[in-house]
């Protein structure tokens, strides 16, 4: 038993060694832009921009990813000594130049929830290569009345941060490549299947070489071998396609009987033909298989023959 315990321990240890690491669980931020402080005065509509230069131009990789916004704000109104709470509207995600087509809508801050409110949103974005203005624009509208002096000194003190998980950014192209490879392999498999299918249905394969193996003219019908092989020829003709109507000459008139394809090859009959083949063809093949099984069983049954096949 000790031997088995040892084997079990080695097995469990090996399992821990070979368990693949869950890479998605690790979120490494390639880009992080934190604690950008800003402030706006009351009675003002302003916007705040983040340019790519702020990211040290490291966002040069093309691809798709996500940006998470976090920002908080405090609002003061009234005089510096007499601060009054006031409503305002903040719209995040209005972009300039469509560099970051991200829109998370508007957020209203009322008197009771404005203070140190933290807003968070995850936006899908597209990253582009090359030069050009790349920026995130956030509009802030304090939405205060100019006639109310108590709101004159509204100050928005906010901070914003965003982060791009490296996993998403770095692997986006790899995911696309792997998906492209999978699609290419699927295409190859589909083509191979089509090729095999067409081969299986190909009845135009030349088998005349079988006639020429022994250099014989098999069209000699007036021989003893012709008579013996005639049933085989009949069997071979069974699967032939009816290509021309059957002609029956009666007296001086010939009657042409068209092939069954005039009915069975109509487009509105094809669905029924499939069912018909399954029912009739399947039944016939099943009966023939049962008979074949019985024939094989009888052939190997020593009681059916004077010769004991078991001795063979």
């Amino acid at each position: 038993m000790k031997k088995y315990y040892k084997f079990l321990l080695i097995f469990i240890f090996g399992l821990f060694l070979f368990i693949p690491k869950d890479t998605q669980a690790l979120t490494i931020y390639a880009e992080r832009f934190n604690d950008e402080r800003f402030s706006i005065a009351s009675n003002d509509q302003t916007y705040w921009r983040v340019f790519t230069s702020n990211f040290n131009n490291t966002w040069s990789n093309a691809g798709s990813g996500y940006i998470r916004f976090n920002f908080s704000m405090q609002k003061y109104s009234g005089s510096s000594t007499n601060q009054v709470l006031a409503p305002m509207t903040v719209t995040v995600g209005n972009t300039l130049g469509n560099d970051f087509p991200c829109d998370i809508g508007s957020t209203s801050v009322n008197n009771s929830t404005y203070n140190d409110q933290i807003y968070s949103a995850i936006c899908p974005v597209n990253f582009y290569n090359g030069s050009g203005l790349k920026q995130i624009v956030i509009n802030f509208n304090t939405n205060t009345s100019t006639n109310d002096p108590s709101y004159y000194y509204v100050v928005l003190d906010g901070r914003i941060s965003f982060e791009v998980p490296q996993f998403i950014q770095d692997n986006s192209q790899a995911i696309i490549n792997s998906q492209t490879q999978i699609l290419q392999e699927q295409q190859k498999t589909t083509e191979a299947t089509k090729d095999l299918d067409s081969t299986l249905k190909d009845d135009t394969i030349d088998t005349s070489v079988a006639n020429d193996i022994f250099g014989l003219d098999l069209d000699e019908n007036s021989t003893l071998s012709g008579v013996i092989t005639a049933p085989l020829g009949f069997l071979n003709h069974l699967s032939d396609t009816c290509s021309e109507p059957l002609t029956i000459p009666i007296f001086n008139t010939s009657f042409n009987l068209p092939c069954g394809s005039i009915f069975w090859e109509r487009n509105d009959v094809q669905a029924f033909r499939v069912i018909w083949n399954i029912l009739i063809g399947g039944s016939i093949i099943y009966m023939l298989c049962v008979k074949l099984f019985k024939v094989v069983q009888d052939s190997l049954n020593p009681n059916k023959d004077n010769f004991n096949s078991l001795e063979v």
Partner: protein
Amino acid sequence: MVKALVSGILKLVIALINIVLLPLNLLIQALIPDLSTAFGYVTGFFNYLGNVSSWVMSYTGLTSEVISIIVAIIIATITIPLAVHMIKLVVIWFDKLKVG
């Protein structure tokens, strides 16, 4: 493919039969030409049946693949007992040869 396989096997069997019966065929053609004519009628009858069979089978609605499978099973049903019987004969013959 099934049809081509069946057709190839049948043609091979026909060729083998022709080889085995080649001397007899030559003898009949040389010595009894009228019998050859009679053989021709028999073969012609089967050929006509073959032509009619394709017309009849076209009315059954069965596809050529299904018909080919049916023909293949029929050929196997005919061939297997014959093959087993021939093997038994060979073994009996060999057994008697060994005893002798």
